[in-house]
């Protein structure tokens, strides 16, 4: 240790994994390092499932990492530290407490006396622009006002470190922008009673707008793929070419990095159960392909521009783009989305033909669909329980991903008329045309 002063937080070789009996552990975070110094805003940027929120909770002392060390001001973290306060994506306000009571919550836990409490909460409420709302209940407030309460509640304890878990993603675009600029203004004026901010986001522009440093996360397993310093001074201008370039670069980083295999499969044949599918609807895909195929894109679109035009977050656009590229409808490269011939064909086809093209793409690129169809065909009653496929998926991914992948494959298979699904019995079956129904 050759440091002269101790950083606020230092995380070393942090790993978070869930043990599975049947196969290898599910790794959520792999070998992550993070150091936070006083006076900086750091953003953890990544897609959902990249483990950025998990890292935030580890830093908050809410979650114990499987291995690795977490130090808070030089000493190991054993639980929620007194100098850390958190702002939640869902606001996490207590609906039965008034604004003031919500704000005082953290002070009560510290055992601060009543008068002192009132004075400090008043201060925080005024600072964050909530004056006059003291006696209101959260449900009387708009989303933006609620998140202001969340902020005031965190600031009132004068934390050294403010943790923010996607604080603006539940808000509409305009409200989110107002809150962001208000927060940055307070930070620049030195009015925030905090020393450092760690913010989790999946919004690239938000990260470039607010942070001094950005850690870009990659998924499967979650890890830090890139670290960037943001050289701009506040207030930042979104339309500054250098700003745009940085956003573009990050799009490039996030699309270039293909998720590596969780398992190195020995055989050449792809394992139908090893890849999680994004829960992307067929209407969504069709809509994007049509948009891409028409003016002004004419088959090729810059992702940041597309994201702005469609009002899509990266978190929605990237899974969509990746799914299209997996199905061979489009190519995703260097932050651009390029339609393929199949994709163009699909976009221009009629409803029934679209189903055929989609079925063809599924057969070629999604081995899970083929596997399910094979199992149904082999059965004498042409029925197969969904649970066996879910179990096999769970050998390779978390139960949530397995359930999501299964739901997605059901929706796609139904659209392509590959098979039918009985939700009540949780069974796959063949279409009625193929197989006369015996039951009911």
């Amino acid at each position, binding site marked *: 240790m050759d440091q002269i002063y101790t950083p606020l937080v230092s995380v070393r070789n942090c790993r*978070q*994994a*869930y*043990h599975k009996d049947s196969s290898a552990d599910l790794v959520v975070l792999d070998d992550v390092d993070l150091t936070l110094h006083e006076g900086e805003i750091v953003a953890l940027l990544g897609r959902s499932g990249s483990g950025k929120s998990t890292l935030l*909770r580890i830093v*908050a*002392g*809410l*979650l*114990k990492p*499987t291995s690795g060390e977490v130090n808070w001001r030089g000493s190991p*973290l*054993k*639980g*929620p530290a*007194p100098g*850390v*306060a*958190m702002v*939640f*994506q*869902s*606001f*996490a306000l*207590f*609906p*039965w*407490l008034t604004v003031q009571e919500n704000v005082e*919550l*953290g002070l*009560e*836990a*510290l*055992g601060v006396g009543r008068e002192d409490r009132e004075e400090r909460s008043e201060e925080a409420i005024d600072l964050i622009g909530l004056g006059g709302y003291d006696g209101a*209940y*959260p*449900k*009387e407030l708009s989303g933006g006002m609620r998140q202001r309460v969340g902020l005031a*509640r965190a600031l009132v*304890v004068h934390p050294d470190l403010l943790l923010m878990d996607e604080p603006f993603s539940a808000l509409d675009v305009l409200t989110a922008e107002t809150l962001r600029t208000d927060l940055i203004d307070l930070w620049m004026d030195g009015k925030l009673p905090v020393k450092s901010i760690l913010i989790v986001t999946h919004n690239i522009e938000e990260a470039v707008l607010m942070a001094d440093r950005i850690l870009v996360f990659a998924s499967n397993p979650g890890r830090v793929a890139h670290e960037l310093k943001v050289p701009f001074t506040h207030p930042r201008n979104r339309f500054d070419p250098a700003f745009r370039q940085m956003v573009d670069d990050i799009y490039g980083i996030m699309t270039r990095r293909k998720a590596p295999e969780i398992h190195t499969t020995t055989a050449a044949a792809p394992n139908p159960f090893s890849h999680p599918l994004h829960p992307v609807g067929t209407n969504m895909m069709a809509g994007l392909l049509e948009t891409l195929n028409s003016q002004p894109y004419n088959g090729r679109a810059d992702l940041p521009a597309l994201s702005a035009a469609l009002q899509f977050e990266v978190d929605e656009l990237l899974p969509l783009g990746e799914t299209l590229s997996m199905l061979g409808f489009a190519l995703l490269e260097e932050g651009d989305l390029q339609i393929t011939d199949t994709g163009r064909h699909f976009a221009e086809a009629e409803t029934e033909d679209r189903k055929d093209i989609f079925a063809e793409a599924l057969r070629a690129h999604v081995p899970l669909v083929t596997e399910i169809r094979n199992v149904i065909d082999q059965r004498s009653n042409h029925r197969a329980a969904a649970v066996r496929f879910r179990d096999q998926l769970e050998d390779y991914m978390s139960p949530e991903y397995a359930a999501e992948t299964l739901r997605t494959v059901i929706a796609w298979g139904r659209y392509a008329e590959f098979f039918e699904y009985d*939700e*009540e019995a949780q069974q796959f079956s063949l279409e009625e045309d193929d197989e006369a129904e015996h039951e009911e």
Partner: protein
Amino acid sequence: MTNYTPPALAGQRLPNRFDGAAMLLVMALLIALVEVGRTTIGTPIAQIENTPIHLDPSWLPYYALRSTARMFLALFFSLIFTFTYATLAAKSRRAGMVLIPILDILQSVPILGFLTFTTVFFLHLFPGEVMGAELASVFVIFTSQAWNMAFSFYQSLTTLPDDLQEASRSFRLSSWQRFWKLDVPFAMPGLVWNTMLSMSGGWFFVVASEAVTVGNTQFTLPGIGSYVAVALAKEDLPAIFYAILTMLVVILLYDQLLFRPLVAWSTKFRFETTAAVAGPEPWMLKLLRRTALFRSIGEMIGGVFGTIFQLRLSFRQPGQVDETSEPSRIIDGAWFLMITAVALYAAWHIVGYVSSTLHWHDLFTAVLMGVYTAIRVTVLMIIASLVWVPIGVWIGLRPKATRIAQPIAQFLAAFPANLLFPPVVLAIVYFHLAPDIWLTPLMLIGTQWYLLFNVIAGAAAFPGDMKEAVANFHIHGWLWWRKVMIPGILPYFITGALTASGGAWNASIVAEVASWGHHTLIAHGLGAYIAQATAAGDTPRVVLGVVVMSCFVIFFNRILWRPLYAYAVRRTTLG
């Protein structure tokens, strides 16, 4: 209208093997109570000073007060039980494995069957004192209230929103602070609603538990129930009508002064992000909120509790959650082993007890009687459904009618049906009707209202846009019932039907045997079996009857209502 899932319908809980253990434990507990009691059952009754009951109506306000006091005392104990038992079950995984199945069994045990065991037990605890009899009565009321309150609280504790839990941990609330800031407020709407249902059901047991005869032990406590019992014995019809009138007034007061203000107040704790359209504020709540005197009293009480709730008491510091670590298998194993050992011991105890006094044909008789009662309950439910579903739907689709009828139905559900028995019994005696058929409706007099007000709630909650779609497509007649209305109200109907049929089983113990002066009417059934065994002090048969009835109730809940409800919820809701 507020609608909560009754505890018995709430999905899959825990593996079934624990249910078996729980059943054994509950049975052994009942037998243990009897064993303790049996030694005292022969002691002379003269030791208990029975206060004479006056049939003069001027005594009724005093009796009503005594009955109400018992009710609230029981409620107090139920709350304490709820806060401790349910919290333990929710916070400790291992305790929950055992405690929840036990609760599940307990709520299916017919409460009136308990009367024997508990009376004997409490009289033994306080020999020769009125205290024993009072406690026995309070305990019966407690058993009618506590289980569903505890269940409701447990369910709330297991569905606490993650973000609020994380917020309380990250702001480092102590476990005591967290309990009063998060756990209790979050559970409040469900708890208040269940408390109200419990209180409504409780009046029935207040009336039933005040005048009790077990073998040759007999007591009457001053109260409305005793008043009615004495009136029955003396064939005093006007007195019975006075009692009914008093009860109506009591329930009206309780409804207006407590029920409505509390429910309105508890909406503050509803976990929802949008402000709901609030109904008119009940006048009592308005009075409490607007009157300076009441308000300052309220603030004073609130201040005291606020200070207590803020104490930073904690059993342990809120630490990190270690999602990686798995519960120790060794401790789990030891725990299972211990449960198995206790269950086996209970089984051994039960077999020993039963084999010394009962034979196989006793079990056969009890089950046969159970089948009779089951047939009765089934027929009644069908008739009641045919009557109340059309009426309920008609009312529910008309907002104006709903506003008038809904409070009346809830009010009637609270009215102790046993007070209405005497006129019916009198009619049966007078017209020489067959008790096997005509005593049957008594079982459902009190509980049919649950069916009605749930159906009303269901029809009232039917979405407006769907009503418009139905009108637009000209859907009428049988098709309308089959495809639209019945699926639309199904979850509500099942909720009501479960409550009604459960209540009917319980009521069979007082409804299958009825008396008027020296006339005693007996119908064939498990209720009469238990009632007669109780009156004869034949404790082994009481145990057998109670256990068989519990099994019937559990069987119906598991085989019929729970799957039906799950099906209805899955199939009739979007998303």
